[in-house]
């Protein structure tokens, strides 16, 4: 890893990466994909490796990251949350209307988080107590939440009139890093700590790895499943208000790209859809891959339609690779 051109901070960053990747060897794959993609776009476009562009990328990735963090726990359980894009839309629409009607200012953050958590808990409760696959539950609520949101918006984009709110997303406490990216990185650090250092985090792995074992060992499985969905909703709510603050309005297309992008980021990061392996630390890498891919392809002038093809293929390929790895473990 010693290169004559790298500066001191770069080498120490690399050393830190290496420590992390040594702890979990399979981390090398997403890390090298991030590096390879960055190198490719830096060489093939003039504008990718500019501060201006990277600031824009981090702003775009911020919403995706914060929304994916909670959903990672749901995937870790072996379940799936298809409705987070719809939660983002509904929370965004309701928040904007409430904000314009009452002028509660920053308290809207609490409202958004609470509404998100409630919507997520609804998913979780139906899933757990109705014994319906989470895929079906969240596919249904995806439609319900979207429908309610579009009724609130009446099909139009609604701007908010409290301009101070903007600062929470596009202000820059750290130069060149939009606040939305800063908050999402802090949220990431907190969620990684939750996953590795708390009972809740451990239970996510255990329930995903062996639900029957969890049950016969006295783990309150149902309760923790509901918690995971509520957390997923809560973080989607927070992500929603940050996205609205960044865009200046809530429109019908808010969150529409999150359905594929969130699952893509989680899976590409290396959290298995089968549950029990992976974790939120990996989701950061997945989000980077998806965000860089989106941005780079845009800069190269690749059409939206082709981008859809590429991203879909990336998701399927990521699942294929992770399955290969699982098989390898079993054979050994």
């Amino acid at each position, binding site marked *: 890893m010693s290169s004559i051109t790298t500066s001191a901070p770069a080498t120490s960053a690399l050393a830190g990466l290496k420590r992390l990747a040594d702890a979990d060897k399979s981390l090398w794959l997403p890390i090298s994909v991030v590096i390879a993609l960055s190198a490719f776009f830096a060489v093939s476009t003039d504008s990718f490796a500019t501060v201006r562009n990277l600031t824009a990328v981090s702003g775009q990735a911020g919403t995706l990251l914060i929304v994916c963090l909670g959903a990672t726990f749901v995937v870790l359980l072996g379940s799936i949350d298809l409705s987070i894009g719809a939660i983002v839309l509904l929370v965004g629409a309701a928040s904007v209307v409430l904000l314009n009607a009452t002028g509660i200012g920053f308290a809207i953050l609490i409202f958004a988080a609470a509404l998100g958590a409630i919507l997520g808990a609804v998913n979780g409760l139906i899933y757990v107590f109705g014994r319906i696959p989470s895929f079906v539950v969240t596919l249904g609520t995806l439609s319900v939440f979207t429908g309610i949101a579009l009724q609130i918006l009446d099909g139009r984009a609604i701007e908010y009139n409290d301009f101070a709110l903007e600062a929470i997303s596009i202000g820059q406490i750290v130069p060149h890093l939009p606040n939305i990216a800063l908050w999402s990185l802090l949220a990431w650090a907190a969620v990684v700590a939750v996953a590795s*250092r*708390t*009972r*809740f*985090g*451990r*239970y996510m*792995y*255990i329930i995903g*790895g*062996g639900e*029957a*074992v*969890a*049950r*016969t*060992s*006295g*783990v*309150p499985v149902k309760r923790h499943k509901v918690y995971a969905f509520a957390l997923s909703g809560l973080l989607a709510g927070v992500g929603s208000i940050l996205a609205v603050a960044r865009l200046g309005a809530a429109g019908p297309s808010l969150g529409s790209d999150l359905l594929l992008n969130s699952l893509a980021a989680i899976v590409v990061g290396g959290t298995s859809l089968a549950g*029990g*392996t992976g974790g939120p630390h990996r989701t950061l890498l997945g989000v980077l891959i998806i965000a860089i891919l989106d941005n780079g392809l845009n800069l190269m002038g690749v059409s939206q339609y082709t981008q859809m093809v590429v991203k879909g293929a990336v998701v399927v390929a990521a699942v294929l690779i992770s399955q290969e790895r699982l098989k390898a*473990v*079993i054979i*050994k």
Partner: protein
Amino acid sequence: MAPAVSFSSSAFGPIMTAHRGDFTGPAALVARGLTKRYGASLVLNDVGFEVGAKSVVSFVGENGAGKSTLLNILSGIVRPDGGTVEFNGRPYLPAGYGEALSLGLSRVFQEQSLIPNIPVYENLVLGHEHYFDRIRQFVDHRAMIAAAERIVAEAGIDVDVRRRTDAYDFSKRQSIEIARACLAPLLIAGQASPLVLLDEPTSALDRRDEEAFFALVSRLKAFASLIFISHRLTEVLAISDRVYVLKDGELVADRLASDTDEAGLHGLMVGRERDADYYHERRQRVLAPAAPAALSVRGLSSSGEYESITLTVHAGEVVGIGGLLDSGKSALGRGVAGVEAPEAGEIALADGQPVRPKITDLVRKGLGYVPAERLAEGIIPSFSVAWNISVAGGGDVMASRIGIWRNRLETTTADRFVRELAIASGAPRQICSRLSGGNQQKVVLARWLSRNLSILILDNPTRGVDAGAKEEIYGVIRRLTDAGVGILLITDELLELIGLSNRVFIMLRGKIVAEVPAPAENKPAERDLVALMLPQSDSAGVVPAFKPVTESFPLTEKAA
């Protein structure tokens, strides 16, 4: 690897005359050097045997001796790591059960493999559907029904093949399954000399159905060869020509049924007479009459599983529960542990206060539960030893009040038990799938030993565990009772049941039918316990699944 040599051109040709008295023809199936290992444990080691044409060969052995693995290899479900098989003179290595079926082998599985929501006739022709295809895609149902009716008529079972399979009770479904395995190859596929594998076919049958089953076997012997597995040695001796004894994956004896008896077979199976020291019987605690209760259960019921169960386990006592597979003893264990909450009744632990029968609550009050299915419910194979041990501690020991996980305590705990129980992983970070069955089971035990237990429920704690680890597990159980923990032991292994328990309850169809004291100096005999487990043929409400047979098959004395 022996080259595949053809013994004879036809299984029926009278090329070889009967040898050793009982055999009527050349070998239908010859296996040599069969070996299978799962990870570190060798489940079959260089096993070779012969099945004579038109004869019945039995395999006997304790649980985990390798009988089911052997049948899995023959039926193409498991691939051997070494060895050759010849079937009717040709090399035989099926890639799946479908291929085995097409080569003339069929099997009655230990667990029922009938599909419940389709008509009986579809189950009877399952795997042979292609004989009923018209223009490839359409199925000739009328021909199917006709073939199915021939099978049930030949087997002498009274069922309407057009009815849904789940309209019949367990015993009758078992009869249907046996009829399918025995007769479908002959009547549908037209195989002249099929081989039928019977894996514990009679464990779910009532006594009168059993007699009909034996009559069917004797009819089948006219054209088929059979491999039979059963724990009931009387049955084995009554229907077999030849008996092979498996022990810990090795073939330890090959006897003609006429040359041996039950006691002899039993001695060969366990490799010893019931050895008191193996179960540490001297360490069995003699309880004071006023010993405090560790668990009391009153009127526990769950419909279709168990009914009005009342029992007490005292501190330091091992209470065993025995019974047939369908006796409801495992379901009772799940109920008492609160894994599946019972519908009625009361459970109290050491403090005597009734508790909600939910495992999350019971675990925090000092209950532990070791399930029978180790790989499905006992351990998470892809997780480390340390994680598997700490699973049950999340509610109290392993996490602080606000839910911070105690990673350091987890590592030291795992370290301690890896050493104390000699878990052969060496390291707490070892992945459990790499451990042998015995070591995996020690990990499950460590999960509960690391907690402050007052009662431990064990469901078949030594299933699929090698002999050495078994003895260590028995040692752990005695250590727990020394510390005043009550043990509720549910097991299919009779010797274990007798050897470990202070008292034994026998369950039959969901009810406790007997309580047998088992003090160290006066252990009950296996025979007596077995007699209590079996349904009495004159008991009310038993409808014979078979039509009455005119000549009843001799059960107790061997066929001449």
